[in-house]
């Protein structure tokens, strides 16, 4: 079974700071998705990465997929209180339509 490890598990920062969240696996990803989950809501898809070395940007969020396709990172520039939430990486299998989630990183951005 392929497992995902996310780090750190919890992050508390001040508004305006930068941060990076990591997602690692012992085996190669076929494709990886990043989700954000706000309290009382379900996860919402942020991005899908499928190609080794791929970089995608979503406003202040930058997503990287490692060259060997065994790791990914999410970098947030100038964090805002609205970025507060649980960030989840997930392996997606197009063969089965299944997602396997990491344990998540809880981000708290203080004003």
């Amino acid at each position: 079974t392929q497992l995902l490890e996310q780090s750190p598990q919890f992050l508390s920062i001040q508004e305006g700071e930068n941060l990076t969240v990591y997602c690692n696996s012992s085996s190669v990803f076929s494709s990886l998705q990043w989700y954000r989950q706000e309290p009382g809501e379900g996860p919402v898809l942020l991005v899908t990465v499928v190609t080794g070395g791929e970089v995608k940007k979503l406003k202040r969020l930058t997503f990287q997929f490692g060259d060997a396709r065994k790791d990914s990172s999410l970098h947030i520039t100038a964090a805002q209180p609205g970025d507060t939430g649980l960030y989840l990486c997930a392996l997606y299998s197009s063969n089965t339509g299944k997602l396997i989630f990491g344990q998540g990183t809880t981000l708290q951005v203080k004003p």
Partner: protein
Amino acid sequence: EAGVAQSPRYKIIEKRQSVAFWCNPISGHATLYWYQQILGQGPKLLIQFQNNGVVDDSQLPKDRFSAERLKGVDSTLKIQPAKLEDSAVYLCASSPYSGGVLYEQYFGPGTRLTVT
């Protein structure tokens, strides 16, 4: 477009009682998923339906959990009898997935279950 609907949003029961959760997926979505999310963890897949057939229920504790998807649309998840460790958020998701292509899963708001 309406999202995935779930009810109830919150439920408190005593151990050994029964509980049922309901999910209405996005119209036209072939695949429906139920996840369990324990506080501080990522969601764990319990069961996956494609239309009204079960694709994967390997993580479903079948001695106490059951699920069905009526006419390939709405779904219910039942726990009988509940244990303390069943306290979690139960998420329903749906997707247009019908094989071989990468699709997004759309999640409902979840039902928060507390077993006392």
